[in-house]
């Protein structure tokens, strides 16, 4: 037997079992994730504007046409506002909560559970509570926050929440901030704990003030945490659907691409248009996530895993 053949046999031996273990998952994901994504793009590039049409190839016509539609522009604008408030709000809240817990309080494990709890409950259930909290009804019938503000004499805070044409989308982001800030807290807490006390101590010995220790030592080290948090929050906000349906239902003030798409597919019954919106959403998420995944894998490799 030649050594070449032996090497080949050994290769197969080390390879085959692993490959067999992975292949069922690969097949499932290949069909249901990548296969369907491919099909979605094919639909988006066709003129299948009614379910019964066969759909001829029309290239990027649907992709271009969308941008001349007022509803699409409104939905994209809303998604941008939502993303800005949601990402910014959850980062600030998560950072503050993390800071509180990092200082060393009693019952840290229980507090962590409390802060993470909203994330485990579905948006459909929590959305209901927020519907009550952010009830825009006139003040005689007000509930939740508006009633609270009125009773405390803070009438200037009473507002229309998600029915306000100007700030509706900002209000819509509040429950999302609430739901995710516990998760961001956990990320920050791990980040804080990863910074060695040596480093802080050394900075102090060198005459840095506490503020300088924070801005010059702690914050630069937290950059990867912030990056992960922004990516995770950002890609979630691009997909937001459940929350808006539960709190506001379908209304133009809080319209987003996912709801627009839902309407096109299941109400208007225009598969090509729905697929086009879905394709844009996919591309937006991919633009955020794929560089991040590559970065994560590279980092893992450089850490010797």
């Amino acid at each position, binding site marked *: 037997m030649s050594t070449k053949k032996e090497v080949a046999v050994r290769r197969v031996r080390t390879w085959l079992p692993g490959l067999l273990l992975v292949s069922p998952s690969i097949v499932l994901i290949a069909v249901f994730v990548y296969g369907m*994504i491919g*099909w979605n793009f094919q639909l988006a590039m066709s003129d299948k504007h009614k379910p019964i049409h066969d759909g001829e190839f029309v290239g990027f016509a649907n992709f271009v046409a969308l941008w001349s539609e007022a509803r699409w522009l409104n939905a994209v604008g809303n998604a941008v506002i939502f993303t800005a408030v949601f990402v910014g709000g959850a980062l600030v809240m998560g950072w503050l909560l993390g800071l509180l817990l990092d200082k060393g309080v009693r019952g840290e494990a229980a507090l962590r559970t409390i802060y993470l709890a909203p994330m485990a409950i579905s948006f459909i259930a929590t959305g*209901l509570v927020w519907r009550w909290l952010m009830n825009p009804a006139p003040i005689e019938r007000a*509930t939740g926050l508006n*009633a609270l503000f009125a009773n405390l004499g803070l009438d200037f805070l009473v507002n229309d929440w998600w029915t306000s044409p100007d700030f509706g989308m900002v209000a819509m982001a509040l429950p999302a901030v609430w739901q995710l800030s516990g998760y961001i807290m956990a990320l920050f807490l791990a980040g804080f704990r990863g910074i060695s*006390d040596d480093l802080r101590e050394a900075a102090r010995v060198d005459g840095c003030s506490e503020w300088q220790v924070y801005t010059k030592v702690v914050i630069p080290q937290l950059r990867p945490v912030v990056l992960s948090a922004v990516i995770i929050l950002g890609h979630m906000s691009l997909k937001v659907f459940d929350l808006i349906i539960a709190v506001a239902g379908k209304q133009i003030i809080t319209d987003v691409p996912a709801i627009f798409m839902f309407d096109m597919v299941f109400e208007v019954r225009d598969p090509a248009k729905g697929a086009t919106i879905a394709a844009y959403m996919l591309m937006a998420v991919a633009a955020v996530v794929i560089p991040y995944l590559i970065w994560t894998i590279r980092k893992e490799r450089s850490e010797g895993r």
Partner: protein
Amino acid sequence: MTATADHAKTARPVPPTTTGAARKGGRPGRRKSGPGGRALTVFTWAVALVFISPVLWMVLTAFKQEGDAYTDPPKVLFTPTLEQFGAVLGGDFLPYVGNSAIATLFSTALVLLLGVPAAYALSIAPVRRTKDVLFFFISTKMLPVVAVIVPLYVAAGRIRMLDNIWTLVLLYTAMNLPIAVWMLRSFFLEVPTGIIEAARLEGASLSRVLWSVMLPVMAPGIAATALICMIFSWNEFFFALNLTAAKAATVPVFMTGFITSEGLYWAQLSAAATVVSLPIVIVGWVAQRQLVRGLSMGAVK
């Protein structure tokens, strides 16, 4: 800075400036004793109470009469009643729970069946680059489900699988598999390679290594992964809303219908929302550590 009892448990009795404990990641906070620390603890707990109050309010309202749910200022003291729960459970709620249970349990079982071996292979396979490619392929956990809904709807319609609970089982499996593989792989990577090598040197087969050596070590990690998959399936709304109708609809779909039809009955709605959240709260209570760990890791829907 003084080390408290459970600080000493994770950190060896060395000066507080060493990083030994930090590397482990399990170091409890920098504890402060004295009035400053106590005030901080009180403040932090107060913040936590405000934070969780929407959920507490939901549960409280569920035990109210409709009349008590509306008062201004809101009533904290009232005669509790199970009337609302009776109304929710007495309706046509139970079939939806059954559907949700089937979708959740079967898809989670399938995910583990496929995901555990795959994650194992991806954590030990000797060739690095191919491993990365496969891992990348599988770890598409962040891609939006909306991107596949149109073709799925068309396909399920063609093969007459719309409004069928097994369609959801299959989809939830595909939906959770990437997250599960991602999580399980990082748990596998934490297992010291020494154990595996020792078992292999003694001539244990791959399946033997997986079953008798890895599984016991991995049990908490697998539990955390399963919990996350169960939560995601139980809460999943988008597929359920779009691919089911009267027969196979799940609890979240029922809830939205309920909100539309009973929109002003806050007490009854709260009871329904409480019932929906209950399984998760119970599971989370029983396996609190796994839940927190799972949520902190695989939270990315």
